[in-house]
């Protein structure tokens, strides 16, 4: 009897926690919060600074590398065909590692295992360019990450991280991106924190940057200890964000203020 009551209570609490989640019909990309100028920059490939990296990525795709002396294209041929829709399913479960890897991590798995080359450093120009090129092949494709049942515990951990208050300011991602996304933080729009456009060009950075870079900026913003690039925690957060954005179209390379 007591146990039943407890379960009922827990279920009610879980229900309450989920109540802050953004309903499907209200999901909005960061794009829709931007000024007309910034939107135009994203929309027009010749004006979009992220496209320069995509072009670099295309060159790297075809360049042989490593002891295997193989290019990405030697295994995957034409990226426009083989990579279409791929980024929409990342982070994905990597059996050999027993954990999820994001797109950057997956590219490095190919570097090490198939090209026998050293992995790219996170946030390096080459890794950003290749991931932008691969993700751009999914432009317009609906996000569909997290289906693999092996991913369930990692999605759950990402969700817990999203809800966890942390840092000297004691704020959680959910406080801003679920509860206050229609508001302004010192005049700047707080968006829903949707991961639709990564890697993307941020005018504030004057550079292309990964989703992990953005997450680390938000974590440092609340004065918490940022997780290291490539850490499982950041991949879990990325994974949760992608499941939260299910069905939203990929926009890579997006532009943000």
């Amino acid at each position, binding site marked *: 009897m007591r146990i039943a009551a407890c379960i009922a209570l827990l279920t009610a609490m879980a229900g309450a926690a989920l109540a802050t989640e953004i309903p499907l019909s209200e999901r909005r990309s960061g794009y829709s919060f931007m000024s007309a100028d910034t939107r135009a920059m994203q929309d027009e490939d010749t004006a979009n600074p992220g496209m320069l990296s995509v072009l670099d990525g295309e060159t790297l795709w075809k360049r042989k590398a490593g002891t295997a002396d193989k290019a990405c294209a030697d295994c995957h041929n034409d990226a426009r065909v083989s990579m279409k829709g791929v980024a929409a399913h990342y982070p994905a479960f990597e059996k050999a590692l027993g954990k999820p890897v994001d797109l950057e991590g997956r590219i490095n798995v190919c570097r090490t295992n198939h090209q026998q080359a050293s992995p790219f450093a996170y946030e390096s120009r080459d890794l950003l360019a290749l991931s932008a090129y691969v993700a751009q092949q999914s432009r317009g494709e609906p996000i569909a990450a997290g289906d693999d049942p092996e991913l369930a515990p990692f999605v759950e951990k990402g969700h817990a991280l999203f809800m966890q208050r942390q*840092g000297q300011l004691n704020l959680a991602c959910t406080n801003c991106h679920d509860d206050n996304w229609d508001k302004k933080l*010192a*005049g700047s729009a707080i968006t829903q924190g949707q991961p639709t456009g990564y890697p993307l060009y941020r005018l504030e950075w004057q550079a292309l940057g990964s989703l992990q870079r953005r997450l680390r900026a938000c974590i440092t913003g609340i004065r918490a*200890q940022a997780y290291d690039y490539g850490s499982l925690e950041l991949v879990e957060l990325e994974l949760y964000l992608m499941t939260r954005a299910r069905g939203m179209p990929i926009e890579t390379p997006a532009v943000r203020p």
Partner: protein
Amino acid sequence: MARLALTLAAGLFAAGAPASAEELRPYTVVGDAIPQSLTGTSGDVTRGRALVVERSSTCILCHSGPFPEQAFQGDLAPNLSGSGVRWSEGQLRLRLVDAAHLNAATIMPSYYRIDGLTRVGASWRGKPILSAEQIEDIVAYLVTLRN
């Protein structure tokens, strides 16, 4: 102008000048207030205003107020105009020291607290967001906001 807007909009994400490491001074909560000054003296109104609008104090990331010279203010929280009418000095002090004491679900940070926090970044660990002197300066200023 656009550049300026961007820099300011980066808002929260600028590393602030944290209060220096210090032992927290003891204080007593009476009802919904801390009646006694944390420092034993009253704060400085001019310094208090300067602190409220300074980005590293974080107030106007969330709040707006009578700061016509500040182009970028937040709207996550009540306007600070009239704070001195709505609240007594002691009530304002507790709101700054530990707003969560009054409302566990609030997003307003506790400015004079070091316990019960998770994964605080190395440069901020063990320090309150504001020092006792800074809190007293801000309280002294908020009390003057009478309309």
